[in-house]
Every structure is written in C-alpha cells, then in structure tokens.
C-alpha cells in the first residue's frame, strides 16, 4: 500500500477532513456567486483564456461548412436568388409604407408632445456554441463588451425573439433563451391585444401563464412582446399557441406555445442594442 517515497503513517489530514474543507470552500463559492455575484471576475478571466482556444477548435467545423456551401448546386442557388428578389420587392414596398407611417407617427407624437421613441441599433452575432446546462437553456454568441453588448439586451432572429443577453465577456456573451425554465417574457396576443406573461417550460416549449378561463385565446394565435417591461421593444413575435387546455382544477387556462424563433437552429442572430433610456426629471 505505502509508496516507497511515502511514510507508512500519513501525517497529513485524512480524506474525510479534506473533503469537508473542500466542501466548505465549494459551498461558499456557490453562495458568493449566486447571492452576491462576487466572483464574476474569475468568469471573465476564464473567458479571456479559453476564447482563443474555442475559436481555433471551431475552425474545422467552419471549414467543413464552407466546403459544403461551395458544392451547392447551381440550380438551388438560382432558385434561392429568385425567391430573394421576390421577397426584396415585397420588403421594399413594406419599408416604404413603414417610412410613411414613421413620419406620420413622429408628427402625431410631436402634436401630442410625447417623447420620441429610443432608436434601435442591431449588432449581428453568430452562435459560438450551445451551453450544457440542465437548469436553464443558454447559447453563447461571438460578440461581447467589445462589440457593444451589455447584459439585458434582446436577441432576435428572422422569425422572432430568441432570448436575452444574460452575461457579457470581453469577446463573447451568453444568451438565456426564451424557452429557459422560469424565464419570463411579457407578451400580448396579436389578435385580441390581451396582455400576459410567457414562461419557458424547458424542453423548448413555452407556457402562457395566468390566463383566466374565459379569455379569448385559440390555437394558432401569435404572441408578440408587449414592450411594457422596457427590456424588449414592442411587437417582436415570440410564440404561436399550440394547445389550450381548460383544467377543471384551477381558475386559469393551460396555454402551451411553440417558440417562433429557431432556438436550436439559428446560426446567426441580431442583438437589439437600444440606447439606454435617459429620464430627465
């Protein structure tokens, strides 16, 4: 049992005592981090060290994607181009109409003496990798503080709301997805204007909470952000109602929804960087 370079009788602490000491250190780490956010510096340090490593290890997959893209069929590209041209025409008409409305809106707002809405900036970011956490659903993006991000910003893709930036590092950031368990998003039903709260239920699903049983809501209704929380701008599509259950036991409906954004598919997303709202007394 005893190694040649070791004494027969150990003079240091036994394993149980050392386990207890390390457990104490561990528990204090958990408390310091979850209650007081006291060791965020360590997180940034790890991120600085590991970020270049991750970039290098991602290179083979990126190269494979590049090569796969190179061998796309000519016909498929032509088809995609035609579809994009048609969509561009449609979007241009929409954009003209929107510009007209914006001008009209600004005039009306100035007539009513309402403050102008904060401007909107987009930051494009690509998915770095998927987080491996069973307690919430997260993704990492390749932009961070240096790209102008900060915690709390909304993240969208072409179809809808993806989530919210929860932690920022120098060169990367962490996004908590809307489907993350316990993550709340204030929404309104597009058809009726009814406001409510959407919570993630895990497994990529959402749940519209606290809807009284007599609420007018059907399968297929779209839910948009309501904008009353000052986190998400109003009108971003969030989810589509997939099932409405009337429970005998409770006063509320059980409304299940499917997120519209490609939470596990999107490779590139937009971060909405609103200017911080300045309130003048």
């Amino acid at each position: 049992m005893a190694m040649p370079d070791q004494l027969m009788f150990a003079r240091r602490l036994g394993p149980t005592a050392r386990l207890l000491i390390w457990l104490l250190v561990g528990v204090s780490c958990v408390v310091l981090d979850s209650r007081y956010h006291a060791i965020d510096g360590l997180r940034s340090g790890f991120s600085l060290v590991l970020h270049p490593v991750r970039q290098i290890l991602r290179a083979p997959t990126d190269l494979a994607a590049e090569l796969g893209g190179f061998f796309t069929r000519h016909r498929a590209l032509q088809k995609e181009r035609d579809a994009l041209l048609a969509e561009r025409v449609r979007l241009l008409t929409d954009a003209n109409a929107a510009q007209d409305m914006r001008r009209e809106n600004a005039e009306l707002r100035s007539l009513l003496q309402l403050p102008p809405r904060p401007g909107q900036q987009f930051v494009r970011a690509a998915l770095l990798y998927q987080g491996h956490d069973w307690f919430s659903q997260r993704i990492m993006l390749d932009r961070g503080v240096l790209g102008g991000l900060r915690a709390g910003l909304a993240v969208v893709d072409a179809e809808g709301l993806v989530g919210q930036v929860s932690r920022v590092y120098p060169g990367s950031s962490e996004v908590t997805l809307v489907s993350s368990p316990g993550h709340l998003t204030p929404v309104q039903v597009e058809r009726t204007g009814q406001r409510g709260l959407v919570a993630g239920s895990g497994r990529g699903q959402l749940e519209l909470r606290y809807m009284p049983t007599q609420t007018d809501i059907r399968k297929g209704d779209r839910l948009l952000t309501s904008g009353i929380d000052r986190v998400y701008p109003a009108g971003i599509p969030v989810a589509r109602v997939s099932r409405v259950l009337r429970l005998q036991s409770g006063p509320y409906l059980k409304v299940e929804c499917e997120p519209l954004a490609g939470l596990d598919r999107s490779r590139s997303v937009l971060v909405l960087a609103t200017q911080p709202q300045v309130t003048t007394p």
Partner: protein
Amino acid sequence: MSAPTPDFGSWRHILGTLILAVLLEQLPWGGWALALRPDFVLVGVLFWTLHQPARTGFATAFAFGLLADFQDGVVFGQHAIAYVFGVYLVLYLRLRLLQFDPPRQAAQMFPILLMVQLTVLLVGWLAVNPPANLAMLLPVISSTVLWYLATGFLRLWHGKGLQGRA
C-alpha cells in the same frame, strides 16, 4: 509493487491528459452529441486520482470543477463540489477498484459517476432552480464507457503490470 514504466503518471502525463480533456470539451458540441457527451475532465481527474493519489486529488478536482462551471455557464462551485465528492469516493474505494479488470472497474465506476452527477443536480437544484429534465444523467453512461475505453487502452499499452500497482 512493480512499476511498469517509470514515467507513467508523471506530471507531463497528468497535465497532458487533463488539458486534452479540457480541449475536447471546448469542441462545438451540439444536439444529441452534447446531451451524450461524456464528462472528459471528470473521468481524467478521477483516473489520475485512482492511479496517482499523491499528485492529483481534491485541489485538482476543485480547480477543474470551477473550469467546468465556467464552461457550462452555471453557478461557480456546482461541479467543483461534485468533483471533490467524486475524488473522495475514489480514494475511499481505491484499493477495491484497483483489483478489477477494465470492464468490472468501469462497472464499479458507474455508481461513483452517478453520485457525482446527482451532486451536480442537487447543488444546482438548491442554488438555482429545479432542472428541466433528467437527461442530465445520460453523460454518466457515456462517461462509464469512456472509463472502460481509457482503462482498456492503458492495459493494452502497459501490459498487465499495472494490475499489481495497488
């Protein structure tokens, strides 16, 4: 007490395999591969605790646990506590574990790896919120398979001499 090769378990080996384990976890895993990904770092730390208890142990486990916490973006200490607990279990059962051939040793490691993962679950549950589902126990199976592969590989490489290392 026969040493098969004098440099087995040198600092170079230990650091090399642990860094390799960390690098493997940095690969862009996704989908099913992510759900089934074995905990390379845990297997590495426990492996060296079993074979070189004088060199790796609680402090190594704690440091790599903090790294795993960063990697998964979870609260600091969650994996650190679990890894430390795993090291304790391996030290406690060390003489017993060293007697077995690779498949049996892997089978004996299964409950230890399960206990470690359950500790991660418990700490996360107490510190953050209830877990989404129990798919987090899947890596236990893949980690056991990885343990079997690692021990089998070591046996092929060094011959049977390692069995007398208890």
